[in-house]
């Protein structure tokens, strides 16, 4: 039996051809990359929140209102008595945290809940569209009938928002859905409804952005970098932040204007456009197989004669 040598020249070309065909298919669908460009994906009537950290007094009325409105149990895991969540979790969709003072900045409160991104990474990650962005309101909503509980949304979310019910046999993904059940009854979200200082307000995103910019313009140098967090971050988010301290000090990541799916899936979307990549790959393998199969069969007949044993497939 001959010892097969290294890859022949022809085989090398065959493989090189396969890869280059896949690569050539990519530019043909270059517009796929354009689809993921920022902002355009926030619907015109998108709803959102504007949180002004300089107005927040940290009373946590919104935390309590959120627990009650959403029928959550409230996280008492700290001492078994008080609702005192340390982080967003399966019984906390909204949290107020106190951020430590730094030598250059005073301490500040921060509110955390779903940002309702323009191009949400969780929606891009979700295999069966259990998380979807509402076409009218832009709210990122979870549908339990489609969720398989893979928790990829938790891995993907740049803001660490979706949480999983770890101790249930029928676990759900828990995250702020902007009180969409209250919106259906013409009520505003619980957190904005109870806020005594209007530190967090509810409205259409475009109106909120205007309000935020008015505040920035009215008092220059009050807000950090005179910037509205969420205007461009991660392709634009429907929840906007104003703060006197750097956003990173509040625990908000500086992630730049490009959305995560826009960056990460650029190449994948090209290769998988109309399944062209996989179909080409399959075609190339079939052609190569067909050729080699004939020689394989010949070799089998020869070997069977030689050894007198039936060749195995």
């Amino acid at each position: 039996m001959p010892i097969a040598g290294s890859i022949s020249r022809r085989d090398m070309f065959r493989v090189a051809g396969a890869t280059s065909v896949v690569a050539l298919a990519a530019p043909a669908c270059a517009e796929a990359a354009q689809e993921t460009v920022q902002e355009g994906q926030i619907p015109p009537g998108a709803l959102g929140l504007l949180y002004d950290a300089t107005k927040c007094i940290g009373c946590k009325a919104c935390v309590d209102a959120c627990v009650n409105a959403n029928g959550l149990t409230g996280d008492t895991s700290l001492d078994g008595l008080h609702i005192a969540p340390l982080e967003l979790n399966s019984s906390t969709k909204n949290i107020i945290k106190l951020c430590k003072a730094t030598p250059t900045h005073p301490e500040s409160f921060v509110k955390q809940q779903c940002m309702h991104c323009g191009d949400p990474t969780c929606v891009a990650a979700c295999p069966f569209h259990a998380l979807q962005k509402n076409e009218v309101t832009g709210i990122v909503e979870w549908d339990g009938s489609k969720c398989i509980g893979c928790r990829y949304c938790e891995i993907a979310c740049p803001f660490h928002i979706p949480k999983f019910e770890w101790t249930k046999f029928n676990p759900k993904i828990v995250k702020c859905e902007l009180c969409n059940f209250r919106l259906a009854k013409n009520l505003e979200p619980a957190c904005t409804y109870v806020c005594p200082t209007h530190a967090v307000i509810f409205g259409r995103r475009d109106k909120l952005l205007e309000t935020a910019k008015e505040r920035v313009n009215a008092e220059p140098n009050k807000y950090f970098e005179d910037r509205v967090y969420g205007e461009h971050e991660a392709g634009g988010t429907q929840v906007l932040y104003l703060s006197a301290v750097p956003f990173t000090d509040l625990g908000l990541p500086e992630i730049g204007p490009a959305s995560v799916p826009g960056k990460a899936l650029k190449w994948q979307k090209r290769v998988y456009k109309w399944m062209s990549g996989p179909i080409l790959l399959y075609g190339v393998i079939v052609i190569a197989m067909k050729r080699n199969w004939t020689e394989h069969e010949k070799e089998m007949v020869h070997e069977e004669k030689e050894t007198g044993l039936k060749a195995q497939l």
Partner: protein
Amino acid sequence: MNQPKQPTVVRWQRGVPVYGIPVLTRPFAVLAAIAALGISLAVYREIAGLGPASGMNDAYVWGIWKTFNVMVLTGLGSGGFAVGITAWIFFRRNLHAVMRTALLTSFVAYFTGLIGLGVDVGRPWNFYWAALPWKWNGHSAMLEVCICMPLYAFFPLLLENIPPILERWYYFWKESRPVIDRIMPVIRVTYPWVIALAYALPLMHQSSLGALMLLAGDKLNPLWQSPLLPYLYVACAATLGFACVILTLILCCMFWKRPFDPVIMGELAGI
């Protein structure tokens, strides 16, 4: 069983004498006991939820679970397609001799991975969505894993593993011979098409496994945040596949005192 006395070093070939070896042995019983323990723990997990059973939490969302059951196990199971591609597409004909070991290892690894995935996901009863292509999110790497893994394991990989079973019947169950004689030509005609699928699917889903972490965005070290990650992953999985096949072969030779072919092993290891 009267096995002829064999030299310890021979050349492995495609055509070999077929022996019947008993299935129910002591190692089998030990492994079955471990499996039973695993199944009872899986039942506990279904009742108590993932947290208490696995120690995972919102900070360690996949823990060692998804990393093990889909990433490591399919990596170990890559032998089937890695050896296959090398033998068929790159024409290393010698490797056809170890193909069956590779395929069986692959099937066992994939099947275990799928069971692990079923226990690991929180809401496995919603998996039926996988059967409805118009409900898929085509951009999700996780979808690719959910679809391609079972599809590969239960269609091409299973078909690739059918000839050995038919062969066993052929030799040890005389009544089935006419039927098998009729089935084998059909298999031989369709085989190239099925095998091609058996190589395309794992390449797709292994690259998707690599792409899984791209969506983690800035949580991922910038070193890995690259469009090349899927291809690196495929290369890594294929290498692991070879390693696993080599280990399986060595173990088989030790347990059943089978002769050892250093030439083919060297070729496997050299790749």
